[in-house]
């Protein structure tokens, strides 16, 4: 998923003695593979991950890690395992989440099985670095998202990001990582941008996989940046792994008007964020999900209400392996025109 494979690989590489097969970038071939072997009405993340799994197995992997929970996703790894075994692949699939919770004992047992020499202290040490790496990456990403639409020289942000991530792969201790992060943050701030003071600002909310994997949302953020729009996205791995509970509780407290009980997956936080975007006078909200994503479908009527209360336009996109790219572009273009027109 996006660049997050870097910290994940970093952690595994450093705590146990295994060879890591990097999952190839998602392409149309991945989706075709996933589509072919998935149930038709399952949501797109299932198809994408299944396609990626097949590609990894073809490259010679014999163990797959899966990290899923929250909604239907919690059942996916068992189903994917069965599908792949029926196809004749021989491998072991490990889901790090059991019944919606991270089971530390189970994870310890798994690692011990992979590598007998595993030491807890070493594991915790590298886990600490990895957690920080994710936090720094998310902070940098946030800054990039706000400014990439205004870069003077094309690709300057992406090139620097690539350079930074390469350096991140080689760090040995938390201090080194911190210094790298500080250096690169300064470098990012030095990149020339041509940003007007009252540029259009849009918030993107919705289902997490579609939000975070650029291929699955047809590079929506890139498209928005080309319109010179500042982008705000809340969902990132930092939120999913560490801040989730805190934000969900806050969301329930702050958006009592719109919901009484906690909703499935990220629905409650999406309500809270939509309200945040409304209060902070953003120009628009884009809500994206994969087709048939039940939690996000459930939240749409509430979002409509918020949009109405705060007079902020909202547009919904459902992505599927068969979505027409032209259709998305037309709607997005019209959304941009509308925001421009409202500003005037």
């Amino acid at each position, binding site marked *: 998923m996006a660049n997050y494979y870097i910290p994940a690989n970093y952690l595994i590489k450093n705590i146990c003695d295994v060879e890591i097969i990097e999952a190839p970038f998602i*392409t*149309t071939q991945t989706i075709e593979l996933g589509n072919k072997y998935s149930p038709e009405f399952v949501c797109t993340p299932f198809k994408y991950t299944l396609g990626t799994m097949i590609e990894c197995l073809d490259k010679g992997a014999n163990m797959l890690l899966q990290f899923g929970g929250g909604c239907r996703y919690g059942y996916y790894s068992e189903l994917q395992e069965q599908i792949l075994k029926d196809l004749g692949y021989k491998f072991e699939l490990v889901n790090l989440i059991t019944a919606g919770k991270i089971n530390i004992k189970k994870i310890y047992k798994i690692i011990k099985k992979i590598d007998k020499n595993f030491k807890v202290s070493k594991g915790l040490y590298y886990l600490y670095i990895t957690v920080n790496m994710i936090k720094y990456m998310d902070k940098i990403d946030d800054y990039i998202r706000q400014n990439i639409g205004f870069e003077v020289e094309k690709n300057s942000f992406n090139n620097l990001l690539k350079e930074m991530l390469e350096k991140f792969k080689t760090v040995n201790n938390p201090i080194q990582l911190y210094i790298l992060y500080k250096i690169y943050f300064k470098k990012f701030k030095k990149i020339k941008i041509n940003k007007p003071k009252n540029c259009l600002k849009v918030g993107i909310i919705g289902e997490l996989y579609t939000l975070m994997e650029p291929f699955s949302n047809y590079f929506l953020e890139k498209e928005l940046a080309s319109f010179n729009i500042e982008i705000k996205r809340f969902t990132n791995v930092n939120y999913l792994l560490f801040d989730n509970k805190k934000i969900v509780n806050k969301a329930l407290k702050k958006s009592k008007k719109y919901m009484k009980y906690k909703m499935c997956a990220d629905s409650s936080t999406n309500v809270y964020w939509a309200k945040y975007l409304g209060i902070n006078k953003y120009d628009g909200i884009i809500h994206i999900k994969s087709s048939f994503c039940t939690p996000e479908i459930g939240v749409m009527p509430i979002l409509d209400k918020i949009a109405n209360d705060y007079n902020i336009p909202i547009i919904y996109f459902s992505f599927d392996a068969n979505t027409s790219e032209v259709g998305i572009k037309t709607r997005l273009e019209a959304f941009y*025109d*509308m925001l421009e027109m*409202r500003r005037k």
Partner: protein
Amino acid sequence: MNCYLGVDIGSISTKGVIIDENNNIITSAYIWTEGNPVNAVKNLIEILKKDLNSKYIVKGIGTTGSARKLIGLLLNANIVKNEIMAHAVGTLALYPDVKTILEIGGQDSKIILLNNGIITDYAMNTLCAAGTGSFLSSQAKRLNINIEDFGSLALKSTNPVKIAARCTVFAESDLIHKAQVGYKKEDIVAGLCKSIVLNYLNNVGKGKKIKSPVIFQGGVSKNIGVLKYFKEILNTDVIVDPNSHLMGALGIAILAKKNKTNNIYDLNIKNIDFLTKANECKGCSNNCEILKIYKDDKLIDIWGNRCDRYIKN
């Protein structure tokens, strides 16, 4: 005298208008696209040219509709915009106080909500062609009715049948069933018109507050049967402009006027050789479909690449 050309190239029909400085329509044309937008536009321009006095010079060209990008290249347009903007601008020129625009075209349908001349919300149908013009015309063909007579036949009915209109496929099988048990043709036609309205309001208009004045446009607005059921179900007056089919073209012509440069445009495109060549890129497993656009054997643009492998020149 200056004039401005707006072309709206839809899936089914191609529309063109030429306006003067005061947004008055000097001449207009409406022809079928027949799956070949380049040819359709060539014919369209010839028709428009016939009625255009030689004292007019074209100072701006705009294109909209699903083939807007291609035709924009062909005509060297100074503005290429999506249909939603074009329809809103065109309608606002004639009805400045419009609050809701209902539009049903050949392949898509949309709703645009406005307030004080500003678009505040819009929606477009997704995934499904139920309730669009092409569905109506295919059903008309099945029932052996002229699409032009469709509306007036529907008005004759006193007892429209109920048709499951969730999806064109379901609607069609339901329709066959209704015909086979002996319903009258006009009742079936009326049922179809009603189902289009219901489908539109449930799909595209879902959750939108429809306030009057309501304006109905697009090709299907010429169908008086559909119009009747819109009025009945919305319980408000629905206006159909005599030029309702030209609104997109008018809007884009106005936008071309607003964005005019000092260029003067030539409408002699009849003999320009315009060609699109498609091939699949084998650079990676994405297999992008690369479209190369040639104008008189000269490559003028490349579309469809996800990376920087293919860049013009």
